[in-house]
């Protein structure tokens, strides 16, 4: 460092500052993109839920589980990127489910979060929503 001339030192300092600024900006941009993606994911889930919930109301209260299963299956077919649909009652017991079996680790997490299971079916959705890659 001592052998470097003033010109080199200024260039080095400027480059380091620019690099630091670049890293900060890139970090901010990446985190922002993740935030926006996450937000759009949540919005999409909210829309799907707000469409499914009123439609499922009758089946949940009257105990027409076959209709609920059909509905969960249809929702999965309509939304290609959706991995799994679960309809639960207010206690969290699963009334209908569609999609592949949820991994044990995620199930354990859901049970820890207070979600019950019923007849070996899987439990409730929790954000972040599982979306197929």
């Amino acid at each position, binding site marked *: 460092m001592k052998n470097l001339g003033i010109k080199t030192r200024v260039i080095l300092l400027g480059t380091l500052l620019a690099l630091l600024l670049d890293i900060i900006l890139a970090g901010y941009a990446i985190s922002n993109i993740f935030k926006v993606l996450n937000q759009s994911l949540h919005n999409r889930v909210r829309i799907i839920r707000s469409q499914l919930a009123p439609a499922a*109301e*009758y089946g*949940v*209260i*009257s*105990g*027409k589980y076959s209709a609920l299963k059909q509905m969960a299956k249809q929702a999965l077919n309509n939304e290609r990127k959706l991995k799994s649909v679960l309809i639960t*009652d207010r206690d969290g017991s699963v009334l209908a489910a569609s999609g592949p079996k949820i991994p044990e680790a995620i199930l354990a997490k859901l049970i820890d979060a207070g979600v019950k299971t019923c007849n070996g079916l899987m439990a409730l959705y929790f954000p972040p929503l599982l979306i197929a890659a």
Partner: protein
Amino acid sequence: MPDTTDIEYISQESELIPQLKKTLENNGVLLVVPDALIFNRETAQPILLTTYRHQKPVFGYSLSYVKAGTLAAVYSTAKQIAKQAGELAVKAEQVSSLLPPPQAPRYFSITVNYQVARSLSLPILDEDAIDKKMHQAETSEHEVGRN
């Protein structure tokens, strides 16, 4: 639960849900009656949803109604009606040739939709216990009638 029955009339299907909402505010339960204008395939679901939102139970008159989402139904199966009819026919043959006047079913079944009971937070006895109680009440009513 009130011990009186409110009867409301409607002249067209569009009046059904507003009138039902009004009726449910002042009544504890809704009884389904065999009236095709009020209870049919198209109206059954909106009626049941309206009663769920008012947290009021509905009693149907057939097993199909329980499956559709009423809390419970008391009904006679074809077998039960045939049994009573057979008994009446045998009795009429023995005593006189005249058949007795129309009468209420002596044999009946009760079915409860426990999912609806849970949804309405209503504690309900099991079907056998209700059946037993109803038949006991029927028997004592018959005895009072005879005395």
